[in-house]
């Protein structure tokens, strides 16, 4: 390589390094269009007693000491729930570089406990990611949690008119619970894996 060519190569390499440096620095800053609603004062959750897909107790204690991404859904849901679980699986993959204690635990709470038994959830929720947790339980206990988070759900007969067949309208937002078991932020639809992971990083960064 002659001298002018070598200088050109060095200059290009330096420019590329600078460009990557700028891009990397930007990733750590506040996302330009933060869509998540971040609570100024995290909100305490009410008491509730539910079961996870391994039939283990799932109450407020299970939200302590880790970050949880909480989502409400049901396994007979064709579009919204699988789409959200798939998006969350990809978001979690994008966060794999974080220390274990900072990686979120994704939990889907069923709003259809009549059909969603722990067995049903065990076959469904971990399919999207082995670390995902499915939660169900008595209706009054589910409602204790949904009321505490402002989650709405309602049953409507299926359009095909099958007797006994119904679908569930439900809040499709994702709720971020902090390691003290309090509601810290709400992500509204539409959910995107890259946006969710970037905003999650930023929110955690704010906790110092």
């Amino acid at each position, binding site marked *: 390589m002659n001298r002018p060519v070598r200088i050109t190569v060095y200059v290009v390499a330096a420019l590329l390094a600078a460009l990557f440096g700028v891009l990397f620095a930007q990733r750590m800053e506040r996302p330009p269009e933060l869509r998540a609603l971040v609570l100024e004062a995290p909100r305490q959750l009410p008491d509730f007693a539910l079961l996870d897909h391994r039939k283990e107790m799932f109450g407020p204690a299970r939200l302590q000491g880790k970050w949880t991404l909480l989502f409400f859904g049901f396994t007979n849901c*064709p579009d919204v729930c699988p789409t959200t679980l798939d998006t969350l699986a990809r978001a979690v993959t994008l966060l794999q570089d974080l220390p274990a204690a900072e990686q979120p635990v994704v939990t889907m709470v069923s709003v259809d406990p009549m059909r969603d038994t722990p067995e049903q959830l065990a076959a469904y929720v971990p399919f999207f990611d082995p670390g995902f947790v499915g939660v169900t339980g008595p209706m009054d206990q589910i409602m204790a949690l949904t009321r505490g988070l402002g989650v709405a759900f309602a049953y409507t007969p299926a359009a095909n008119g099958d007797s006994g067949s119904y679908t569930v309208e439900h*809040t499709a937002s994702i709720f971020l619970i902090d390691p003290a078991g309090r509601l810290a932020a709400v992500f509204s639809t539409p959910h*995107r894996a890259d946006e969710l992971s970037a905003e999650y990083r930023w929110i955690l960064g704010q906790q110092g």
Partner: protein
Amino acid sequence: MKISIRGPMVLVGMFCLAMIAACGQPAADRSPQAIDPWIRLAPPGAGMLAGYMVLENPADRAVELVSVSSPAFASIEVHRTEVTDGVARMIAEPRVSIGAGERLIFEPGGRHLMLHGPTQALDEGTLVPLELVFDDGTDLQINAIVRRSADTDTDGDPHQHH
């Protein structure tokens, strides 16, 4: 004398045949088409799946999609997910119209084929035959591939497609 008449007649006949051939071919291409049909991979035993695609109507008149069926499902309906005040609900669209030269987008978090009661295991990569019937008589046979995610990371973001 006879020859001078038959000459132009043959030419007219050939011209007519050429016109029929020329018109017949584009007519077939101007029926509705499905682009990238796919079905989201679901956990084994799931009773409800969703299918997505883009339907294109190249014709100069609107067409309506009147039915969708498949031997792989008990029933198929067109639904649209609508989010109001954060609450997602499904709106049935029994007859959905595609304007002349327009596209109808089926995508995660929006319009979708609600696929009820799979009659067989649908592993990743399976090609699922679907039959789409339109009000202009078009009977469109397509194969939807079973896959885990949409192709891009814009899954669930309708703004990316506009």
